[in-house]
């Protein structure tokens, strides 16, 4: 709750500081300081310290899992700001507003990780998505950005409608929006309940871009300014996943049999479409958007399995996937050309950047000793107990993913230098990138450090 409040407040501060402060760097540092404060407050809450004691009237509940997820999200946000903050300055001249929106989104994310009522879920999701429509369209002169924004908006609003219909049907069946009320153990699961649940699942699938409700993702990720794509594809997606898991774990545990099969279908489809379609992409950015779909397919395995292993795994997945993707996007947002060829020979020109990128891609592909492997390992292990075939399919698709992730590594390491105008990789950036890469490796070697925080 600490972080949620301060996040909203800091958003307001950022909003107004735009009037007073003109130097973008200062704004950025202010935002970074804000995220650090949030992180600190969140950590404090993990230790049981509250800023103000608020009665949430059963609307929100910040349990250990939610707090840890928040910590991961905030840490990702921090790293995101550190790496990509300066790239944000180049989009329009509304940096303070963008940063404010980011903080508002942050508040929304902390709501969806800790909601106890469907109302909060709805509000949280809207608080996340409405600013995202704006961020997507923030590059106003860019037609692609406009188009992405409008597509995102129309489809997002449509899916909100589905979400609401789902909530309504569930409400009709249960007479309550509280998760505990929905998870009524006495009444049987009627067709109304099932229909509502399915619609909710579809809406959530849309939000996490699971096939066949993923269509907005590639276009929006592609069209949005790269910095914000990075944010959407990582932090936001993970937060929504947390909501997905929380919703189905708390509310629909009893209907497990009714939805598990569907999640399996969604997961398999998502994995298939995400991975296969990514293979033929010519732009790294678009490839990454498909890859984010593919990774969502893996995260869906956590929803599918819905056991301790899965939940722990989602944390790890959140951390490692976000870090790696943020890192890659950070580099990408400093490049002009997003084609694979633009990476040619990067290893010889920027060996450290290339090394960090290679680690990120290895992590996404799930090569051992990177966080990505451990995350996938948890997912597979969680899913394997329920369905061997799904786990095998996921693994096969992981092998397919090698194909497109390694294209970048190939370009960086094995192809001759193509273009000669230098890219803006200063030492600080490179250093931070390497730091993130080290984090990814640490997650891969000692995943228990993160998981262990659940049981402090």
């Amino acid at each position, binding site marked *: 709750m600490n972080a949620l409040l301060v996040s909203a407040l800091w958003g307001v501060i950022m909003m107004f500081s735009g009037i007073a402060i003109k130097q973008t760097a200062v704004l950025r540092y202010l935002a970074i300081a804000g995220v650090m404060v949030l992180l600190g407050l969140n950590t404090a809450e993990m230790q049981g310290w509250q800023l103000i004691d608020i009665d949430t009237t059963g609307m929100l509940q910040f349990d250990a899992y939610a707090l840890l997820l928040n910590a991961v999200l905030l840490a990702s946000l921090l790293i995101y700001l550190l790496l990509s903050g300066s790239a944000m300055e180049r989009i329009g001249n509304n940096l303070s507003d963008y940063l404010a929106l980011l903080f508002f989104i942050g508040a929304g994310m902390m709501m969806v990780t800790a909601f106890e009522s469907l109302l909060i879920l709805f509000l949280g999701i809207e608080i996340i998505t409405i600013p995202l429509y704006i961020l997507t369209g923030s590059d106003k002169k860019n037609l692609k950005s406009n188009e992405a924004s409008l*597509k995102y908006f*129309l*489809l997002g609003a*449509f899916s909100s409608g*589905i979400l609401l219909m789902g909530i309504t049907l569930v409400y009709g069946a249960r007479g309550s929006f509280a998760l505990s009320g929905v998870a009524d153990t006495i009444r049987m699961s009627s*067709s109304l309940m*099932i*229909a509502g649940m*399915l*619609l909710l699942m*579809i809406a959530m699938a*849309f939000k996490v871009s699971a096939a*066949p*409700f993923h*269509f*907005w993702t*590639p*276009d929006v990720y592609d069209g949005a300014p790269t910095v914000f794509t990075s944010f959407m594809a990582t932090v936001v997606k993970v937060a929504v996943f947390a909501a997905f898991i929380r919703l189905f774990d708390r509310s629909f545990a009893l209907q497990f049999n*009714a939805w598990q*099969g*569907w999640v399996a279908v969604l997961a398999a489809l998502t994995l298939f*479409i995400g991975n*296969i*379609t*990514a*293979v*033929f*992409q010519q732009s790294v950015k678009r490839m990454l958007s498909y890859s984010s779909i593919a990774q969502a397919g893996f995260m869906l395995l956590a929803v599918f399995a819905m056991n301790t292993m899965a939940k722990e795994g989602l944390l790890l997945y959140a951390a490692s996937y976000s870090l790696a993707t943020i890192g890659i996007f950070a580099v990408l947002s400093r490049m002009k050309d997003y084609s694979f060829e633009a990476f040619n020979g990067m290893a010889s020109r920027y060996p450290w950047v290339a090394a960090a990128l290679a680690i990120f891609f290895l992590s996404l592909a799930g090569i051992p000793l990177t966080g990505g492997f451990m995350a996938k390992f948890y997912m597979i292990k969680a899913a394997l107990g329920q369905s061997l075939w799904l786990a095998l399919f996921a693994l096969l698709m992981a092998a*397919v993913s090698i*194909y497109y992730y390694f294209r970048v590594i190939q370009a960086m390491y094995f192809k001759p230098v193509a273009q000669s105008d230098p890219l803006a990789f200063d030492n600080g950036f490179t250093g931070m990138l390497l730091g993130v890469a080290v984090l990814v490796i640490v997650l891969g070697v000692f995943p228990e450090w993160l998981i262990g925080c659940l049981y402090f």
Partner: protein
Amino acid sequence: MQDIFQLAYWIPLLPLLGALLNGLGRNHLNRTLSGLVGSATVLGSFVLSLLIFFQVKAGQSGVVHYFDFIRVGSFSIPFAFQIDALSSLFLLIITGVGFLIHVYSTAYMHHEEPAHFARYFAYLNLFVFSMLLLVLGSNYVILFMGWEGVGLCSYLLIGYWFKNPAYTAAANKAFIMNRIGDLAFLVALFWIITKSGVVGFQEFFAFVQQHQFTDRFTATDITVITVLFFIGATGKSAQLPLYTWLPDAMAGPTPVSALIHAATMVTAGIYLIARSNMLYSLAPHTLHLISWVGLMTALLAASIAVAQNDIKKVLAYSTVSQLGFMFLALGTGAYAAAVFHVMTHAFFKALLFLGSGSVIHAMGGEQDIRNMGGLSKKLRVTYITFLIGCIAIAGVPPFSGFFSKDAILLSVFLHSPIQYALALLAALLTAFYMFRLLFLTFSGRFRGTQEQLHHLHESPLAMTLPLVVLAVLSIVGGWVGIPAALVPDAEALHHFLSPVIPVLTHAVSHETEYALMALSTGLVLVMIGAAWMRYRNYQPGTPANAFINLLENKWYVDELYQKIIVQPFYVLAGWLRAIVEAKGIDGLVNGVGRAVQYSARQLRLVQSGQVGLYVLLMVLSMAIMLLIQFFIRK
């Protein structure tokens, strides 16, 4: 005096050391030194063999165990030597003839560069080593080591002049054909190990004795093993159908042909079967097979030899034919007679080859007998020794060939009259082509170039001396096996071999024996006469008829093999490489990749950019999900 047995390892070791010395020091040794090292080591072995031979003759034998070559669990393959009558006899033949040929080679190969000269002797020594290993080994594995070793050395020596593609092709052919036989040998070996768990001769024979025709060792096992060993032997000893490498092997230097492709290596098959005679005696079907294969080989090779014009090719086919005789003997159960023939054959065939070498040497490399003639005047020693060899191989008493061949014919006669008739025919053909060769080479007038005539000269002492020694042996060598019908208390060899090979007791009257001897001798003399009539004054350009052409082209067997075995395999390999591998398996693998790429290309088209389509697809999927959930999944 068992101690001398302990020293047996020096017998193969000495040639090996010689090979190493010559091989590694090839750039530093001069010709004299190389020759010396090569010959002396073999001589040393010969002396040791002689000592051992006398020990064995005195009635001692045994197995000398050195170390465990392989030991796995309870199964072990010891590195051990078997010293008994059979091996000691072979030791003598190998080292004796081997030594002579080494000496001969020092002169014959003298025009080679020192490095190659040393290489030659290294190979030759290595061969002697392998051959000794083959006959000394106390189990099938050690035997096989030698078996493959001699194959290797044969390969190396045939391809000694490696710049000539035809020669290296012949070398490859020899090795590969041998390998076909080796595979059979190996399978037999594995069979033995699997069935009995032992590989030693004595242990295995004891096992067979104990378990024969029981479940642990059925008649099938015996037949399979014996047939497989025999197939192995057909490879090494150039029998049908694997004989074609031997004539080609004449690509090697002539002394090599003498040593390897006449006297020693090719008899390894006979040694193997003689060594395993206990097993073969239990397998009548195999014996039957062996006798027919041997007989057919003898006839076929003899028929080809009649029409060959290369001096070495004639001798090569004659060797194949003689080996066929030996197998015929084995097939009729006359193991001792076969071994006897091995010995005599070693003498006279080595002699003939060395003689031909002397001729070739004199003719400056010419091998076609149609371009020779009348050499008897210039090459006295060679001529006389060659003549002795011819008489010996033709089987005229009291030369060595007569006795060994007579023993075989007698055994065949008792076995089957038809086979006897055919064998006799082969023997007569032998006499005919050998004397054809003799007359064409040494009689009549010289048909070569003037230059060759000018260069004609008798070979140096190092070459003629072995000829003389071998000639003497060709005469007297057969006396160790004079049949009992002629002199009392004879058949010394059979008695000597009796600890290894049980003595056959013929239930045949002396009169029959005399009649057979007379018949064969008489007919042989007739054939010699015929050859003399025909080839005494040979003129080139005699038109050949179709049959002779067929013979000259060796019944087109090589071509046949090429067409029905090598070519199909070669084409198959090409097909596998170009189609199955590239298009099939790799195509499948790549196909999976391509399928992924293809579906990627198609699937991404769904992402058309049209919001309407996106919503439509979403609504459709939603509707379908609800439909399935409510109306199908129930």
